[in-house]
Protein backbone atom coordinates (compact mmCIF):
# COMPACT_ATOMS: atom_id res chain seq x y z
CA UNK A 1 0.00 0.00 0.00
CA UNK A 2 2.92 2.33 0.73
CA UNK A 3 3.64 2.39 -2.98
CA UNK A 4 0.29 3.98 -3.75
CA UNK A 5 0.86 6.95 -1.46
CA UNK A 6 2.22 10.43 -2.11
CA UNK A 7 4.32 11.24 -5.14
CA UNK A 8 4.83 7.63 -6.22
CA UNK A 9 1.07 7.10 -6.22
CA UNK A 10 0.50 10.10 -8.48
CA UNK A 11 3.33 8.99 -10.77
CA UNK A 12 1.76 5.55 -11.12
CA UNK A 13 -1.60 7.12 -11.92
CA UNK A 14 0.02 9.35 -14.53
CA UNK A 15 1.81 6.36 -16.08
CA UNK A 16 -1.42 4.37 -16.21
CA UNK A 17 -3.18 7.29 -17.92
CA UNK A 18 -0.33 7.68 -20.40
CA UNK A 19 -0.31 3.97 -21.20
CA UNK A 20 -4.09 3.57 -21.41
CA UNK A 21 -4.49 4.29 -25.19
CA UNK A 22 -1.76 1.80 -26.00
CA UNK A 23 -3.57 -0.89 -24.05
CA UNK A 24 -7.05 0.06 -25.25
CA UNK A 25 -6.14 0.20 -28.96
CA UNK A 26 -9.69 1.33 -29.62
CA UNK A 27 -10.83 4.81 -30.64
CA UNK A 28 -14.20 4.44 -28.95
CA UNK A 29 -12.66 3.64 -25.56
CA UNK A 30 -10.15 6.45 -26.01
CA UNK A 31 -12.86 9.04 -26.60
CA UNK A 32 -14.87 7.71 -23.65
CA UNK A 33 -11.78 8.15 -21.48
CA UNK A 34 -11.21 11.64 -22.92
CA UNK A 35 -14.73 12.67 -22.00
CA UNK A 36 -14.27 11.18 -18.54
CA UNK A 37 -11.15 13.31 -18.09
CA UNK A 38 -13.11 16.40 -19.15
CA UNK A 39 -15.77 15.59 -16.59
CA UNK A 40 -13.02 14.97 -14.04
CA UNK A 41 -11.71 18.51 -14.58
CA UNK A 42 -15.20 19.89 -13.91
CA UNK A 43 -15.57 17.57 -10.90
CA UNK A 44 -12.26 18.82 -9.49
CA UNK A 45 -13.70 22.33 -9.58
CA UNK A 46 -17.01 21.32 -8.01
CA UNK A 47 -15.04 19.63 -5.26
CA UNK A 48 -13.29 22.92 -4.41
CA UNK A 49 -16.47 24.86 -3.64
CA UNK A 50 -18.51 21.90 -2.36
CA UNK A 51 -15.94 19.57 -0.84
CA UNK A 52 -13.36 21.99 0.50
CA UNK A 53 -15.44 25.11 1.11
CA UNK A 54 -18.70 23.41 2.08
CA UNK A 55 -21.03 25.29 -0.30
CA UNK A 56 -23.13 22.82 -2.27
CA UNK A 57 -23.22 24.43 -5.70
CA UNK A 58 -25.87 22.98 -8.03
CA UNK A 59 -25.12 25.27 -10.96
CA UNK A 60 -21.77 23.73 -11.75
CA UNK A 61 -22.87 22.00 -14.95
CA UNK A 62 -24.37 25.24 -16.21
CA UNK A 63 -20.98 26.92 -15.92
CA UNK A 64 -19.52 24.08 -17.95
CA UNK A 65 -22.10 24.98 -20.60
CA UNK A 66 -21.09 28.64 -20.39
CA UNK A 67 -17.48 27.65 -21.15
CA UNK A 68 -18.52 25.32 -23.96
CA UNK A 69 -20.88 27.84 -25.57
CA UNK A 70 -18.27 30.60 -25.32
CA UNK A 71 -15.96 28.47 -27.45
CA UNK A 72 -18.79 27.32 -29.74
CA UNK A 73 -20.18 30.81 -30.43
CA UNK A 74 -16.80 32.48 -30.84
CA UNK A 75 -15.29 29.84 -33.12
CA UNK A 76 -18.33 29.04 -35.28
CA UNK A 77 -20.09 32.41 -35.53
CA UNK A 78 -17.15 34.75 -35.21
CA UNK A 79 -14.25 32.69 -36.55
CA UNK A 80 -12.15 33.32 -33.47
CA UNK A 81 -9.14 30.94 -33.29
CA UNK A 82 -9.77 28.01 -30.93
CA UNK A 83 -7.16 28.79 -28.30
CA UNK A 84 -8.20 32.43 -27.99
CA UNK A 85 -11.81 31.31 -27.59
CA UNK A 86 -10.56 28.74 -25.09
CA UNK A 87 -8.91 31.41 -22.92
CA UNK A 88 -11.98 33.64 -23.22
CA UNK A 89 -14.12 30.73 -22.03
CA UNK A 90 -12.19 30.86 -18.76
CA UNK A 91 -12.64 34.63 -18.52
CA UNK A 92 -16.38 34.55 -19.31
CA UNK A 93 -17.08 31.81 -16.76
CA UNK A 94 -14.99 33.64 -14.15
CA UNK A 95 -16.98 36.86 -14.69
CA UNK A 96 -20.33 35.02 -14.69
CA UNK A 97 -19.19 33.07 -11.61
CA UNK A 98 -18.23 36.25 -9.82
CA UNK A 99 -21.67 37.80 -10.23
CA UNK A 100 -23.57 34.60 -9.47
CA UNK A 101 -21.22 34.07 -6.51
CA UNK A 102 -21.65 37.44 -4.83
CA UNK A 103 -25.42 37.01 -5.08
CA UNK A 104 -25.85 33.37 -4.15
CA UNK A 105 -23.14 33.10 -1.49
CA UNK A 106 -25.10 35.43 0.76
CA UNK A 107 -27.30 32.40 1.35
CA UNK A 108 -26.23 29.50 3.51
CA UNK A 109 -26.65 25.75 3.42
CA UNK A 110 -29.64 24.41 1.52
CA UNK A 111 -30.78 27.89 0.56
CA UNK A 112 -27.58 28.32 -1.38
CA UNK A 113 -28.07 24.97 -3.12
CA UNK A 114 -31.65 25.76 -4.09
CA UNK A 115 -30.70 29.20 -5.33
CA UNK A 116 -27.90 27.80 -7.49
CA UNK A 117 -30.23 25.12 -8.82
CA UNK A 118 -32.51 27.94 -9.98
CA UNK A 119 -29.57 29.83 -11.48
CA UNK A 120 -28.69 26.67 -13.34
CA UNK A 121 -32.20 26.42 -14.76
CA UNK A 122 -32.19 30.08 -15.79
CA UNK A 123 -28.92 29.53 -17.62
CA UNK A 124 -30.43 26.51 -19.34
CA UNK A 125 -33.44 28.55 -20.44
CA UNK A 126 -31.19 31.37 -21.66
CA UNK A 127 -29.24 28.94 -23.81
CA UNK A 128 -32.36 27.27 -25.11
CA UNK A 129 -34.37 30.42 -25.88
CA UNK A 130 -31.75 32.97 -26.94
CA UNK A 131 -31.63 31.60 -30.46
CA UNK A 132 -29.81 34.51 -32.08
CA UNK A 133 -26.84 33.92 -29.80
CA UNK A 134 -26.88 30.20 -29.02
CA UNK A 135 -28.81 28.68 -31.97
CA UNK A 136 -31.39 27.46 -29.43
CA UNK A 137 -32.45 23.83 -29.56
CA UNK A 138 -30.71 23.34 -32.91
CA UNK A 139 -27.41 23.68 -31.11
CA UNK A 140 -24.03 24.69 -32.42
CA UNK A 141 -22.63 22.33 -34.99
CA UNK A 142 -19.14 22.05 -36.38
CA UNK A 143 -17.11 23.46 -33.53
CA UNK A 144 -13.50 23.19 -34.75
CA UNK A 145 -11.11 20.84 -33.01
CA UNK A 146 -8.33 22.54 -31.05
CA UNK A 147 -5.83 23.92 -33.54
CA UNK A 148 -2.39 22.38 -33.48
CA UNK A 149 0.44 23.83 -31.49
CA UNK A 150 3.60 23.71 -33.60
CA UNK A 151 3.98 20.23 -35.08
CA UNK A 152 1.33 18.70 -32.78
CA UNK A 153 -2.17 18.36 -34.22
CA UNK A 154 -5.31 17.60 -32.23
CA UNK A 155 -7.53 16.08 -34.90
CA UNK A 156 -7.36 12.44 -33.88
CA UNK A 157 -8.93 10.88 -30.79
CA UNK A 158 -5.49 9.87 -29.56
CA UNK A 159 -4.03 13.39 -29.68
CA UNK A 160 -7.19 14.78 -28.07
CA UNK A 161 -6.79 12.24 -25.30
CA UNK A 162 -3.28 13.43 -24.49
CA UNK A 163 -4.31 17.08 -24.78
CA UNK A 164 -7.13 16.65 -22.26
CA UNK A 165 -4.88 14.54 -20.04
CA UNK A 166 -2.33 17.37 -19.98
CA UNK A 167 -5.04 19.82 -18.88
CA UNK A 168 -6.27 17.39 -16.25
CA UNK A 169 -2.74 17.02 -14.89
CA UNK A 170 -2.37 20.81 -14.80
CA UNK A 171 -5.73 21.10 -13.06
CA UNK A 172 -4.77 18.54 -10.42
CA UNK A 173 -1.43 20.23 -9.84
CA UNK A 174 -2.99 23.68 -9.35
CA UNK A 175 -5.71 22.22 -7.15
CA UNK A 176 -3.16 20.46 -4.95
CA UNK A 177 -1.28 23.73 -4.54
CA UNK A 178 -4.49 25.52 -3.54
CA UNK A 179 -5.86 22.99 -1.07
CA UNK A 180 -2.52 22.39 0.64
CA UNK A 181 -1.87 26.09 1.17
CA UNK A 182 -3.04 28.67 3.69
CA UNK A 183 -5.68 29.62 1.15
CA UNK A 184 -7.01 26.07 1.18
CA UNK A 185 -7.03 26.15 4.97
CA UNK A 186 -9.22 29.26 4.83
CA UNK A 187 -11.65 27.41 2.54
CA UNK A 188 -11.75 24.42 4.89
CA UNK A 189 -12.25 26.69 7.90
CA UNK A 190 -15.37 28.06 6.20
CA UNK A 191 -16.62 24.53 5.54
CA UNK A 192 -15.97 23.48 9.12
CA UNK A 193 -17.92 26.40 10.59
CA UNK A 194 -18.48 29.75 8.94
CA UNK A 195 -19.20 31.31 12.31
CA UNK A 196 -15.85 30.15 13.71
CA UNK A 197 -13.99 31.05 10.51
CA UNK A 198 -15.31 34.59 10.71
CA UNK A 199 -14.34 34.82 14.39
CA UNK A 200 -10.83 33.79 13.33
CA UNK A 201 -10.67 36.82 11.07
CA UNK A 202 -11.50 35.17 7.75
CA UNK A 203 -13.47 37.40 5.40
CA UNK A 204 -16.35 35.03 4.56
CA UNK A 205 -17.68 36.64 1.40
CA UNK A 206 -14.25 37.16 -0.09
CA UNK A 207 -13.10 33.63 0.69
CA UNK A 208 -16.27 31.97 -0.57
CA UNK A 209 -16.39 34.11 -3.72
CA UNK A 210 -12.78 33.29 -4.55
CA UNK A 211 -13.45 29.59 -4.10
CA UNK A 212 -16.60 29.83 -6.21
CA UNK A 213 -14.88 31.67 -9.06
CA UNK A 214 -11.93 29.25 -9.07
CA UNK A 215 -14.31 26.31 -9.07
CA UNK A 216 -16.40 27.56 -12.00
CA UNK A 217 -13.26 28.40 -13.98
CA UNK A 218 -12.49 24.66 -13.83
CA UNK A 219 -16.01 24.03 -15.15
CA UNK A 220 -15.51 26.66 -17.86
CA UNK A 221 -12.30 25.13 -19.15
CA UNK A 222 -13.80 21.66 -18.95
CA UNK A 223 -16.68 22.95 -21.08
CA UNK A 224 -14.26 24.55 -23.54
CA UNK A 225 -12.42 21.23 -23.93
CA UNK A 226 -15.76 19.47 -24.31
CA UNK A 227 -16.66 21.82 -27.17
CA UNK A 228 -13.39 21.01 -28.92
CA UNK A 229 -13.78 17.28 -28.46
CA UNK A 230 -17.49 16.64 -29.05
CA UNK A 231 -17.73 19.42 -31.67
CA UNK A 232 -21.49 19.77 -31.15
CA UNK A 233 -23.24 21.72 -28.40
CA UNK A 234 -26.88 21.52 -27.36
CA UNK A 235 -28.73 23.19 -24.49
CA UNK A 236 -28.87 19.83 -22.67
CA UNK A 237 -25.30 20.47 -21.62
CA UNK A 238 -26.70 23.08 -19.19
CA UNK A 239 -29.35 20.76 -17.78
CA UNK A 240 -29.22 19.73 -14.15
CA UNK A 241 -28.37 16.15 -15.20
CA UNK A 242 -24.79 17.19 -15.90
CA UNK A 243 -24.51 18.83 -12.48
CA UNK A 244 -25.92 15.79 -10.72
CA UNK A 245 -23.51 13.55 -12.61
CA UNK A 246 -20.66 15.70 -11.34
CA UNK A 247 -22.06 15.62 -7.80
CA UNK A 248 -22.22 11.83 -8.06
CA UNK A 249 -18.60 11.58 -9.22
CA UNK A 250 -17.46 13.71 -6.30
CA UNK A 251 -19.55 11.80 -3.75
CA UNK A 252 -18.52 8.36 -4.96
CA UNK A 253 -14.83 9.25 -5.07
CA UNK A 254 -14.75 11.18 -1.84
CA UNK A 255 -15.84 14.74 -1.25
CA UNK A 256 -13.15 17.09 0.01
CA UNK A 257 -10.26 14.92 -1.15
CA UNK A 258 -7.95 15.68 -4.04
CA UNK A 259 -8.08 12.25 -5.59
CA UNK A 260 -11.79 11.67 -4.94
CA UNK A 261 -13.27 13.40 -8.01
CA UNK A 262 -10.84 11.53 -10.27
CA UNK A 263 -11.58 8.12 -8.79
CA UNK A 264 -15.31 8.84 -8.79
CA UNK A 265 -15.37 9.99 -12.41
CA UNK A 266 -13.31 7.04 -13.60
CA UNK A 267 -15.28 4.48 -11.62
CA UNK A 268 -18.76 5.75 -12.49
CA UNK A 269 -17.87 6.15 -16.17
CA UNK A 270 -16.44 2.63 -16.24
CA UNK A 271 -19.53 1.24 -14.50
CA UNK A 272 -21.88 3.12 -16.84
CA UNK A 273 -20.00 1.77 -19.86
CA UNK A 274 -19.90 -1.74 -18.43
CA UNK A 275 -23.65 -1.76 -17.83
CA UNK A 276 -24.55 -0.36 -21.23
CA UNK A 277 -25.81 -3.74 -22.51
CA UNK A 278 -28.65 -3.40 -19.98
CA UNK A 279 -29.76 -0.14 -21.65
CA UNK A 280 -32.21 1.77 -19.45
CA UNK A 281 -32.36 -1.09 -16.97
CA UNK A 282 -28.81 -0.34 -15.93
CA UNK A 283 -30.26 2.13 -13.44
CA UNK A 284 -31.72 -0.88 -11.62
CA UNK A 285 -28.17 -1.96 -10.87
CA UNK A 286 -26.72 1.48 -10.64
CA UNK A 287 -29.20 2.93 -8.15
CA UNK A 288 -28.74 0.32 -5.41
CA UNK A 289 -24.95 0.35 -5.81
CA UNK A 290 -24.96 4.11 -5.34
CA UNK A 291 -27.24 3.95 -2.31
CA UNK A 292 -25.11 1.23 -0.70
CA UNK A 293 -22.04 3.33 -1.29
CA UNK A 294 -23.54 6.42 0.33
CA UNK A 295 -24.70 4.37 3.33
CA UNK A 296 -21.53 2.39 3.92
CA UNK A 297 -18.92 4.83 2.64
CA UNK A 298 -20.36 8.29 3.30
CA UNK A 299 -16.92 9.84 2.86
CA UNK A 300 -16.55 8.17 -0.53
CA UNK A 301 -13.88 5.70 -1.53
CA UNK A 302 -10.87 7.95 -1.17
CA UNK A 303 -12.26 9.69 1.92
CA UNK A 304 -12.79 6.40 3.75
CA UNK A 305 -9.33 5.23 2.84
CA UNK A 306 -7.69 8.49 3.98
CA UNK A 307 -9.57 8.55 7.29
CA UNK A 308 -8.50 5.01 7.99
CA UNK A 309 -4.92 5.84 7.15
CA UNK A 310 -4.89 8.96 9.34
CA UNK A 311 -6.29 7.00 12.26
CA UNK A 312 -3.74 4.23 11.84
CA UNK A 313 -0.92 6.78 11.71
CA UNK A 314 -2.30 8.28 14.91
CA UNK A 315 -2.34 4.99 16.83
CA UNK A 316 1.15 3.98 15.72
CA UNK A 317 2.55 7.37 16.61
CA UNK A 318 0.64 7.40 19.88
CA UNK A 319 2.22 4.13 21.06
CA UNK A 320 5.35 5.48 22.81
CA UNK A 321 3.07 7.52 25.09
CA UNK A 322 0.91 4.59 26.08
Amino acid sequence: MKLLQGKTGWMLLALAALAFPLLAQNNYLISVATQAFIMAIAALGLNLITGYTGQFNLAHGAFMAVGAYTVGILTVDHQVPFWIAFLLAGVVTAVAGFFVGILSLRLKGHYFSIFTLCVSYIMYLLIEKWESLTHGTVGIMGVPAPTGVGPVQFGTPLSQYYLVLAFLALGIWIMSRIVNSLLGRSFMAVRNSDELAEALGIDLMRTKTLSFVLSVVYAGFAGALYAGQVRFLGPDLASEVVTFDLVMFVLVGGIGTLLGPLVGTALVTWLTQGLQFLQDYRMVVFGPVLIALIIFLPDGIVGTWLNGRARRADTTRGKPHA
Partner: protein
Amino acid sequence: MLEIIDLTKLFFGLTAVDHVSTRFERGQVSAIIGPNGAGKTTFFNLIAGTHRPSSGRILFNGQDVTGLRPDHVARLGIARTFQTTHLFDNATIIDNLIVGHRLRTRSGLWDVLVNTKRLQQEERTCRDKAMEALDFVGLAHISHRMAGDITQEERKRVAFALALATDPELLLLDEPAGGINPEETVGLAALIRKLVDHGKTVCLIEHKMDMIMRLADKIVVLNNGTKIAEGTPAEIRRDPQVIDAYLGVDHAAV
Protein backbone atom coordinates in the same frame (compact mmCIF):
# COMPACT_ATOMS: atom_id res chain seq x y z
CA MET B 1 -9.48 48.50 27.10
CA LEU B 2 -13.07 47.75 26.09
CA GLU B 3 -15.73 50.30 26.77
CA ILE B 4 -19.42 49.58 26.25
CA ILE B 5 -21.69 52.61 26.11
CA ASP B 6 -25.44 52.29 26.35
CA LEU B 7 -25.51 49.11 24.21
CA THR B 8 -28.94 47.91 23.06
CA LYS B 9 -30.04 45.09 20.81
CA LEU B 10 -33.60 44.54 19.68
CA PHE B 11 -34.71 41.38 17.88
CA PHE B 12 -38.04 42.23 16.28
CA GLY B 13 -39.19 44.15 19.32
CA LEU B 14 -37.67 41.77 21.86
CA THR B 15 -34.99 43.58 23.83
CA ALA B 16 -32.12 41.13 24.22
CA VAL B 17 -29.63 43.66 25.54
CA ASP B 18 -31.04 46.79 27.13
CA HIS B 19 -28.91 49.95 27.56
CA VAL B 20 -25.89 48.21 29.04
CA SER B 21 -22.80 50.25 29.84
CA THR B 22 -19.63 48.89 31.38
CA ARG B 23 -15.90 48.68 30.85
CA PHE B 24 -13.36 45.89 30.90
CA GLU B 25 -9.87 46.79 32.10
CA ARG B 26 -6.65 45.60 30.53
CA GLY B 27 -5.04 42.64 32.25
CA GLN B 28 -8.12 41.65 34.20
CA VAL B 29 -10.59 38.79 34.16
CA SER B 30 -14.11 40.10 33.80
CA ALA B 31 -17.07 37.77 34.06
CA ILE B 32 -20.61 38.11 32.82
CA ILE B 33 -23.15 36.09 34.74
CA GLY B 34 -26.90 35.85 34.77
CA PRO B 35 -29.74 33.41 34.28
CA ASN B 36 -30.31 31.65 30.95
CA GLY B 37 -31.75 34.04 28.39
CA ALA B 38 -30.32 37.07 30.17
CA GLY B 39 -28.61 38.21 26.97
CA LYS B 40 -25.05 37.17 27.81
CA THR B 41 -24.21 35.49 24.52
CA THR B 42 -25.98 38.24 22.57
CA PHE B 43 -23.79 40.69 24.44
CA PHE B 44 -20.71 38.80 23.20
CA ASN B 45 -22.13 38.64 19.70
CA LEU B 46 -22.48 42.42 19.69
CA ILE B 47 -18.88 42.93 20.78
CA ALA B 48 -17.54 40.36 18.30
CA GLY B 49 -19.57 41.82 15.44
CA THR B 50 -21.83 38.81 14.82
CA HIS B 51 -24.81 41.05 15.47
CA ARG B 52 -25.05 44.75 14.80
CA PRO B 53 -26.19 46.75 17.86
CA SER B 54 -29.50 48.59 17.59
CA SER B 55 -27.96 51.49 19.46
CA GLY B 56 -25.00 52.27 21.66
CA ARG B 57 -21.29 52.19 21.06
CA ILE B 58 -18.37 49.83 21.61
CA LEU B 59 -14.86 51.25 21.97
CA PHE B 60 -11.83 48.97 21.83
CA ASN B 61 -8.62 50.72 22.89
CA GLY B 62 -10.40 53.99 22.20
CA GLN B 63 -11.33 52.98 18.64
CA ASP B 64 -15.00 52.77 17.72
CA VAL B 65 -15.67 49.17 16.65
CA THR B 66 -19.47 49.33 16.72
CA GLY B 67 -21.05 47.34 13.88
CA LEU B 68 -17.79 46.11 12.37
CA ARG B 69 -17.84 42.64 10.77
CA PRO B 70 -16.56 39.73 12.92
CA ASP B 71 -13.45 39.17 10.79
CA HIS B 72 -12.53 42.84 11.12
CA VAL B 73 -13.03 42.74 14.88
CA ALA B 74 -10.83 39.63 15.06
CA ARG B 75 -8.06 41.37 13.14
CA LEU B 76 -8.19 44.25 15.63
CA GLY B 77 -7.34 41.80 18.40
CA ILE B 78 -10.56 40.42 19.87
CA ALA B 79 -10.76 36.62 19.80
CA ARG B 80 -13.64 34.50 20.95
CA THR B 81 -14.56 30.93 21.74
CA PHE B 82 -18.03 29.45 21.39
CA GLN B 83 -20.17 27.37 23.71
CA THR B 84 -19.71 24.39 21.43
CA THR B 85 -16.27 23.84 20.04
CA HIS B 86 -16.32 23.38 16.28
CA LEU B 87 -13.30 21.37 15.24
CA PHE B 88 -12.78 19.42 12.06
CA ASP B 89 -12.82 15.92 13.52
CA ASN B 90 -11.11 14.18 10.63
CA ALA B 91 -7.98 16.28 10.89
CA THR B 92 -5.20 16.46 13.44
CA ILE B 93 -5.21 19.05 16.20
CA ILE B 94 -2.30 20.92 14.66
CA ASP B 95 -4.06 21.01 11.28
CA ASN B 96 -7.10 22.48 12.99
CA LEU B 97 -4.96 25.19 14.55
CA ILE B 98 -2.83 26.41 11.66
CA VAL B 99 -5.65 28.48 10.17
CA GLY B 100 -5.84 30.42 13.45
CA HIS B 101 -3.03 32.73 12.43
CA ARG B 102 -4.29 33.14 8.86
CA LEU B 103 -5.68 36.60 9.63
CA ARG B 104 -2.14 37.91 10.21
CA THR B 105 -0.96 36.66 6.80
CA ARG B 106 -1.37 38.20 3.36
CA SER B 107 -0.72 35.40 0.86
CA GLY B 108 -3.34 35.24 -1.85
CA LEU B 109 -4.04 33.16 -4.92
CA TRP B 110 -0.97 34.40 -6.76
CA ASP B 111 1.36 33.40 -3.92
CA VAL B 112 -0.24 29.97 -3.95
CA LEU B 113 0.12 29.45 -7.70
CA VAL B 114 3.79 30.44 -7.91
CA ASN B 115 4.69 29.35 -4.35
CA THR B 116 6.28 32.65 -3.32
CA LYS B 117 8.80 33.14 -0.51
CA ARG B 118 6.13 35.06 1.33
CA LEU B 119 3.76 32.09 1.29
CA GLN B 120 6.44 29.69 2.51
CA GLN B 121 7.41 32.13 5.25
CA GLU B 122 3.79 32.66 6.30
CA GLU B 123 3.04 28.96 6.36
CA ARG B 124 5.96 28.44 8.72
CA THR B 125 4.78 31.32 10.90
CA CYS B 126 1.27 29.88 11.09
CA ARG B 127 2.55 26.44 12.04
CA ASP B 128 4.87 27.90 14.68
CA LYS B 129 2.04 30.02 16.09
CA ALA B 130 -0.24 26.99 16.24
CA MET B 131 2.40 24.93 18.02
CA GLU B 132 3.16 27.78 20.42
CA ALA B 133 -0.53 28.18 21.27
CA LEU B 134 -0.92 24.44 21.74
CA ASP B 135 2.09 24.39 24.03
CA PHE B 136 0.62 27.30 26.00
CA VAL B 137 -2.59 25.39 26.72
CA GLY B 138 -0.56 22.32 27.68
CA LEU B 139 -1.48 20.07 24.76
CA ALA B 140 1.73 20.03 22.72
CA HIS B 141 1.96 16.26 23.25
CA ILE B 142 -1.32 15.59 21.37
CA SER B 143 -0.68 17.80 18.34
CA HIS B 144 -0.88 14.79 15.99
CA ARG B 145 -4.09 13.32 17.45
CA MET B 146 -7.31 13.41 15.43
CA ALA B 147 -9.59 16.18 16.70
CA GLY B 148 -12.50 13.73 16.86
CA ASP B 149 -10.67 11.53 19.37
CA ILE B 150 -9.88 13.97 22.17
CA THR B 151 -11.80 14.62 25.40
CA GLN B 152 -14.23 17.45 26.00
CA GLU B 153 -11.72 19.21 28.23
CA GLU B 154 -9.03 18.92 25.57
CA ARG B 155 -11.46 20.35 23.02
CA LYS B 156 -11.98 23.35 25.27
CA ARG B 157 -8.24 23.83 25.51
CA VAL B 158 -7.85 23.50 21.73
CA ALA B 159 -10.52 26.18 21.32
CA PHE B 160 -8.44 28.44 23.60
CA ALA B 161 -5.37 27.66 21.50
CA LEU B 162 -7.25 28.52 18.31
CA ALA B 163 -8.28 31.86 19.78
CA LEU B 164 -4.71 32.46 20.99
CA ALA B 165 -3.24 31.76 17.56
CA THR B 166 -4.98 34.91 16.28
CA ASP B 167 -2.68 37.00 18.52
CA PRO B 168 -5.52 38.67 20.41
CA GLU B 169 -5.38 41.28 23.14
CA LEU B 170 -8.82 40.44 24.43
CA LEU B 171 -10.38 36.98 24.62
CA LEU B 172 -14.13 36.49 24.90
CA LEU B 173 -14.80 33.02 26.32
CA ASP B 174 -18.37 31.75 26.16
CA GLU B 175 -18.85 29.14 28.90
CA PRO B 176 -15.28 27.82 28.82
CA ALA B 177 -16.06 25.35 31.61
CA GLY B 178 -19.39 24.13 30.22
CA GLY B 179 -19.69 20.36 30.18
CA ILE B 180 -16.51 19.47 32.02
CA ASN B 181 -15.98 18.07 35.51
CA PRO B 182 -14.95 20.04 38.65
CA GLU B 183 -11.29 18.94 38.61
CA GLU B 184 -10.91 19.92 34.98
CA THR B 185 -12.63 23.21 35.76
CA VAL B 186 -9.87 24.03 38.24
CA GLY B 187 -7.31 23.32 35.52
CA LEU B 188 -9.08 25.60 33.05
CA ALA B 189 -9.34 28.37 35.64
CA ALA B 190 -5.57 28.10 36.11
CA LEU B 191 -5.17 28.35 32.33
CA ILE B 192 -7.31 31.49 32.20
CA ARG B 193 -5.20 32.99 34.99
CA LYS B 194 -2.09 32.09 32.98
CA LEU B 195 -3.52 33.96 29.96
CA VAL B 196 -3.90 37.09 32.05
CA ASP B 197 -0.40 36.67 33.51
CA HIS B 198 0.88 36.67 29.95
CA GLY B 199 -0.67 40.03 29.22
CA LYS B 200 -4.05 38.99 27.77
CA THR B 201 -7.34 40.43 28.88
CA VAL B 202 -10.17 37.97 29.41
CA CYS B 203 -13.91 38.35 29.48
CA LEU B 204 -15.97 35.24 30.09
CA ILE B 205 -19.51 34.02 30.43
CA GLU B 206 -19.86 31.24 32.96
CA HIS B 207 -22.39 29.53 35.16
CA LYS B 208 -19.92 27.83 37.51
CA MET B 209 -20.03 30.26 40.42
CA ASP B 210 -17.16 28.74 42.42
CA MET B 211 -14.87 29.25 39.48
CA ILE B 212 -16.09 32.80 38.79
CA MET B 213 -15.82 33.93 42.37
CA ARG B 214 -12.20 32.81 42.60
CA LEU B 215 -11.14 33.89 39.13
CA ALA B 216 -12.86 37.15 38.26
CA ASP B 217 -11.56 40.59 39.09
CA LYS B 218 -14.90 42.04 38.16
CA ILE B 219 -18.37 40.63 37.59
CA VAL B 220 -21.20 42.08 35.52
CA VAL B 221 -24.63 40.62 36.19
CA LEU B 222 -27.24 40.64 33.42
CA ASN B 223 -30.90 39.82 33.87
CA ASN B 224 -33.50 40.20 31.11
CA GLY B 225 -30.97 42.14 29.07
CA THR B 226 -30.28 44.79 31.67
CA LYS B 227 -27.28 45.16 33.93
CA ILE B 228 -28.48 44.69 37.47
CA ALA B 229 -25.13 44.80 39.22
CA GLU B 230 -21.42 45.22 38.65
CA GLY B 231 -18.46 44.90 41.01
CA THR B 232 -15.91 42.65 42.65
CA PRO B 233 -16.94 39.08 43.55
CA ALA B 234 -17.28 40.16 47.18
CA GLU B 235 -19.67 42.98 46.25
CA ILE B 236 -21.71 40.77 43.95
CA ARG B 237 -22.14 38.13 46.66
CA ARG B 238 -23.71 40.73 48.93
CA ASP B 239 -25.99 42.33 46.34
CA PRO B 240 -29.61 41.52 47.26
CA GLN B 241 -30.83 41.97 43.67
CA VAL B 242 -28.28 39.45 42.37
CA ILE B 243 -29.11 36.96 45.09
CA ASP B 244 -32.73 37.32 44.18
CA ALA B 245 -32.35 37.05 40.41
CA TYR B 246 -29.60 34.51 40.05
CA LEU B 247 -27.36 33.37 42.88
CA GLY B 248 -29.91 32.15 45.36
CA VAL B 249 -28.84 31.90 48.98
CA ASP B 250 -26.19 29.22 48.35
CA HIS B 251 -23.55 31.52 46.97
CA ALA B 252 -24.55 34.62 48.88
CA ALA B 253 -22.14 36.00 51.45
CA VAL B 254 -23.31 34.95 54.86
